[in-house]
């Protein structure tokens, strides 16, 4: 085949690839667009801080204050459980058992935990936290369930972050008489922490948007007040979208409300992702 023909073939192939890719990216972009167009109408301060109420036709009024607070509470509490354990587990994988058969088994288990369907986590939370531990349908049960979802993400980023730290640092610490845990917690961890933070933020974005695990561990569609204690049921942003779209008697009136919530969720998650990008750029600068 001559040179020209081959160049033309490459051009055509890349052109087709580009058209398809731009189509997919356009579809994804239009999702953001559609959400903002449909939801902007309901957004105002009152929407963010008011209590939700439904009139006799099932049309939602007021705002999503309790759902925002509920989502923050379960996410925060879930992280409070998952972050310390996840970081310690990551330390174990990178500093204590960084190779060998057992390491491979542990790593596959972490990956598997990340792959467990979220609705199965919900069943587990129901069986263990709600029924066995008698925490009931509550913020606590839901937060514990979500913390299990967050764990593998935090473990994997911690392990990778610690592994990237050059071993001179460890050896220097050992030479000064530090024990393994002292070197891990006081020498390696502080250097790796900003990378670990990206995992923590990623995990919180993930659990803040989850619906299936909280369906039967404590979330409720309607609450007349803000949550005040962790043994209460709670409203949550993602669950509210589901509820508005599936149980409402008046779908078209509920729809704009649901889109408004979607905007809030997307803004939250985009902010978290921007934080991740900034953290990554910072760590790149430090290591170079």
């Amino acid at each position, binding site marked *: 085949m001559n040179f020209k023909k*081959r*160049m033309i*073939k*490459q051009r055509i*192939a890349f052109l087709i*690839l580009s058209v*398809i*890719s731009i189509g*997919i*990216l356009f*579809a*994804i972009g239009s*999702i953001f667009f*559609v959400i903002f167009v*449909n939801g902007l109408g309901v957004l105002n301060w009152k929407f963010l801080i008011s209590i939700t109420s439904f009139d006799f036709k099932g049309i939602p009024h007021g705002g999503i204050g309790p759902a925002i607070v509920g989502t923050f509470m379960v996410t925060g509490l879930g992280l409070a459980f998952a972050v310390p354990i996840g970081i*310690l*587990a990551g330390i*174990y*994988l990178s500093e*204590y058992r960084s190779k060998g058969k057992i390491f*491979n088994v*542990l790593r*596959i*288990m*972490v*990956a*598997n*935990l990340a*792959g*467990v*369907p*979220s*609705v*199965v986590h*919900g*069943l*587990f939370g129901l*069986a263990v936290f709600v029924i066995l531990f008698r925490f009931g349908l509550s913020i606590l049960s839901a937060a514990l369930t979500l913390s*299990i979802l967050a*764990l593998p993400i935090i*473990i994997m980023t911690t392990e990778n972050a610690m592994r990237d730290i050059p071993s001179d640092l460890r050896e220097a610490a050992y030479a000064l008489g530090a*024990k*393994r*845990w002292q070197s*891990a917690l006081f020498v390696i961890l502080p250097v790796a922490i900003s990378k670990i933070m990206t995992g923590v933020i990623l995990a919180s974005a993930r659990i*803040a*948007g989850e*619906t*299936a695990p909280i*369906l*039967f561990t404590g979330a409720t569609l309607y609450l007349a007040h803000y949550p005040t204690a962790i043994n209460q049921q709670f409203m949550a942003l993602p669950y509210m*979208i*589901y509820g508005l*779209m599936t149980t409402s008697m008046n779908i078209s009136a509920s729809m704009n409300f*649901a*889109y408004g919530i979607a905007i809030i969720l*997307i803004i939250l*998650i*985009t902010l978290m*992702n921007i934080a991740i990008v900034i953290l990554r750029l910072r760590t790149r600068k430090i290591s170079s």
Partner: protein
Amino acid sequence: MKSKIDLLILISGWISVAIIVAITFFLFYNWFPLFKTTNPIEFFFGTLWYPTAVPPFYGILPLLDATLWISTLAILITFPSAFVLAVFMTHVVPKRMQYILKVFLEIFSSMPSVILGLIGLSIVAPYFQNTLNMDTGQNILNAALMLSLITIPMPTSMMEDFINAFPPEQKEGAEALGANKFETLTKVILPGLKGPFASIAMLSLGRIFGETMIVLMVAGNAAIFPTSIFQPARVLSATIASEMGETPVDTPHFYALFGIGAVLFILTFLINVVGEIVRIKYERQMMKE
């Protein structure tokens, strides 16, 4: 000498194993009482899922069948799309643009799936029904499309990493022999990445299999054996999500839903283990080279 902190780290290190074991135990523990009233054969091969009828039927075959339909269609859309996107990002656009697209896809991948459900339900379904004249807009095709959209970023980013990490000697070797970018891609890079791409397909399938909210909202929730992609269907995960809330604890229906959870868990576990093992194997091979 081991300190208390060493012990704490050791325990945390094994927590994922402990949780996996605990999940397995509690799924089975809440599933097996079902077999006092229902024959296992009826559970696995029964063709009717009518849990609230008198007498109730707890056959999961229609749910399993629907799960296979939707996941197969979704992976058939997801995998080629992700592949095309990964090649586009690594071979067509400039480096800077590649980074921007990566961040864009990352933001999209953390979009809650319930939002895709909202879009499927309020925009795609009416469009299917009114403009394309389908019997119902809440069907297998709609669910598969929404599932694919939310899944695409993960395999795209993994494929991109593998293409970027491809041994430069081999790439440069092909180029030195006069191959252009496209020929290097199809004749050198892709044959070398068969294994990793297989594992990526498995991992995406695992993700699609367990996704709940999208299918719950847009698949139409009819526990029938579908005969075309324009029919509604009800999958394993969505059945648990839609029924568990109203099911009293310690009833046969409750046990049956845990049974579905166990089946779902085992299937995704197998898919993910195979995917992970293949991935680790090839990651190591590529590092050695």
